[in-house]
């Protein structure tokens, strides 16, 4: 089972911090404009709770994430509260993207997205790869998908 790159934690934690700040900001605004007086510690507490929970989730999510390129399928496991294990047979792969968002580029990471024709798990994304790793995974998946020689994908 492969782990994600540890740097993905920076990204996720940063995202949690931003979210907590936003929540704190909203709470502050609500405190300022609310008709009834709300004690000043409330927005701080709201932000703090969001921060703790968010960061905790980010770290747990990192621990829960794993992927594996098997003989005939891509296997993913993830999820903090709801554990999700997904099997994507290579025969079913429609196309593979490797993407690098602006934030991902900041921490020098990339992700690989696998598309199937399915209605539910239509796109499966593996975040937290090094750019080379993402391209390598994309390439491997592509080759395996071709080698597995599916007939009509639908």
């Amino acid at each position, binding site marked *: 089972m492969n782990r994600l790159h540890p740097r993905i934690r920076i990204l996720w934690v940063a995202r949690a911090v931003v979210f907590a700040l936003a929540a704190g900001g909203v709470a502050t605004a609500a405190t300022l404009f609310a008709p009834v007086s709300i004690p000043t510690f409330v927005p701080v507490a709201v932000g703090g709770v969001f921060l703790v929970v968010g960061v905790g989730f980010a770290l747990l999510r990192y621990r829960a994430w794993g992927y594996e390129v098997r*003989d*005939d399928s891509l296997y993913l496991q993830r999820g903090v509260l709801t554990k999700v294990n997904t099997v994507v047979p290579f025969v079913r792969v429609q196309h593979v993207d490797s993407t690098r968002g602006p934030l991902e580029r900041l921490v020098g990471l990339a992700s690989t997205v696998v598309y199937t024709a399915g209605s539910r798990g239509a796109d499966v994304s593996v975040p937290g790869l090094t750019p080379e790793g993402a391209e390598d995974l994309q390439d491997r998946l592509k080759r395996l998908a*071709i*080698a597995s*020689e599916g*007939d009509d994908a*639908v």
Partner: protein
Amino acid sequence: MTRLSPLSVPYRAVQRSASVAFALAFFAFTGGTAFGGVLGGLGAVALVGVAVLGIAGYEIAYFRRFEYELTPDTLDIRSGVFSRRNREIPYRRIQNVDISRNVAQRLVGIAAVNLETAGGGETEGSLRFVSYEEARRIQSEVARLKRGGKDGDAPEPEQELLFELTPRELAIVGALSFDLRLPGLVFVFGSTAFPIVASYVDVPLPTGSAAAAGVGIVALVLLVALVSWAAGFASAVLNYYGFRLTRVGDELQYERGLLQRYNGSIPLDKLQTLTVEDNPLKRRFGYATLLVETAGYAPGSDGTNGSGRASRGSEAAIPLATRDRVLGLVADLEGVELPTFEGPPTRIRRRYAVRYSLVLGAATLALYGANRFLPQEIPWFVPLALVPVAVVAGALQWRHRGYALAEDHFVTRNGFWKRETRVVPYYRVQTVIERRTIFQRRWRVSTVTADTAGSISLVGGDATAVDIEVADAAELRETLNGRLREALSARREARRQSRQAALGIRAAEPDRDADASDSGAVTDTESGVSETPAFVEEAEPTTAENEDEGEGGGEDEGENESEPEIEDEDEGEREGEEDEDEGESEETEVEQEADDPFIWGASAESGDDESDDDGR
């Protein structure tokens, strides 16, 4: 190049001018008489006349500029009066050919043909109108040309009646249908019309006691229910009258409708999943509903479906039939008998009971809270009396859940009020998802979903085995993946063999067109050639074809070069063995390929070709 039916000109002209003229006449006449008296009225009449003439002229031009042709590979349509459009639809891409005729069209003997391909909301090919015979000819020609047949050489495919709705079943469908659109329409119309009417006529407004108002409301509700039931009955009968499902060669054909006849075809190889649906009432009397799901077909978009059922699945959905017949049809279509289901573990009964009890608890709590704050007393403890019901409901839900691994199908069953039994062929599985919520972990169970590429799945659920033991779920996940692989290689094998047989016949007279139109050509022939050396020698005279195949079959050549011995052994085994063994040998083949970069390169070409050809 063929023209539409000449009768379509007057029909279209009348159809179009009827609506336009009505609207125009209304506005022009009211406007005209208001401003210019009799003279204005005459002007309005003249205006309408001009409009009708214009429409007739347009329709003649439309008819003259609309041409279609069934070429060997594509259906070409050239149309457009002002902006021209030439459209070519490859036969292999055509998913459905639907014919519809309303009463007037039936009198005149013309029909509308709709050709659907996957993707895109609109109908890709629409012929308005051709004669009914021509419509049927197009339907069967498309099916025949799709198989790559040449003129006259394909035998007429045999027809097999799969299902016919009996009058009794039709009556039950009608009795169970409600159509809320008519009362809705009446309401909208009434609410806008009422003030107008009331301004002319002195409508006595109801001025009575609250009791009278209550009676009025009840009467109104009853009336609405009655009207919607009658409308539902009527639309169900209109829609499903004479419903027949026929298998013609490798296609399903349905026809239905009392006034407006529908007639369409669904290729069998586009079927994704079958769903048998029932509820306690239907179960009690031994009835069920069958939904047929295909990929990318969004039927019912023309808004002609009354009960709303057809728009959920496909036109071939069977509204209602005795359970035996539905199951028989499932067996016919998919070759699977409903197996015995394996349910969730017994302790899950408690989980459901607890779940429902929690709902009751929440309700009780809410009522208690309300009781505290409201002036008058509420019997807040009433929901607690329903706890036994929760226990029973939990047990029922538990009992109707289950999954089974049939020989070629994954079958799941869920729900008590609306029980859905889904049948998914292994080779239709797209991805397998196993999920375990935080609550499920407490009960040591998880849920496995087999995702398919259907259209209902977007709204409803996929085939899902809910709340099964964690270990079973992990096993099921892997089994599904394995069976998908086996089923796919078995299908490949079957296709290869049928392909071989076809080539054997054609060895006498090479037929390039047919090959070019068959997408499987690359995959199938490449194996076919290398594995039957005897045949290749026999077929030497048809060199052009075989050389071509040789190129496409770089993969097999590569294998023979690298490991000729093993490959030969494999072959020997494969010839005689069962499907499963074949699956395994395929598996090793894939692994070998995966180790050899040259083979990747070679198969990359063929793979590309194939995916090009084969997307739905």
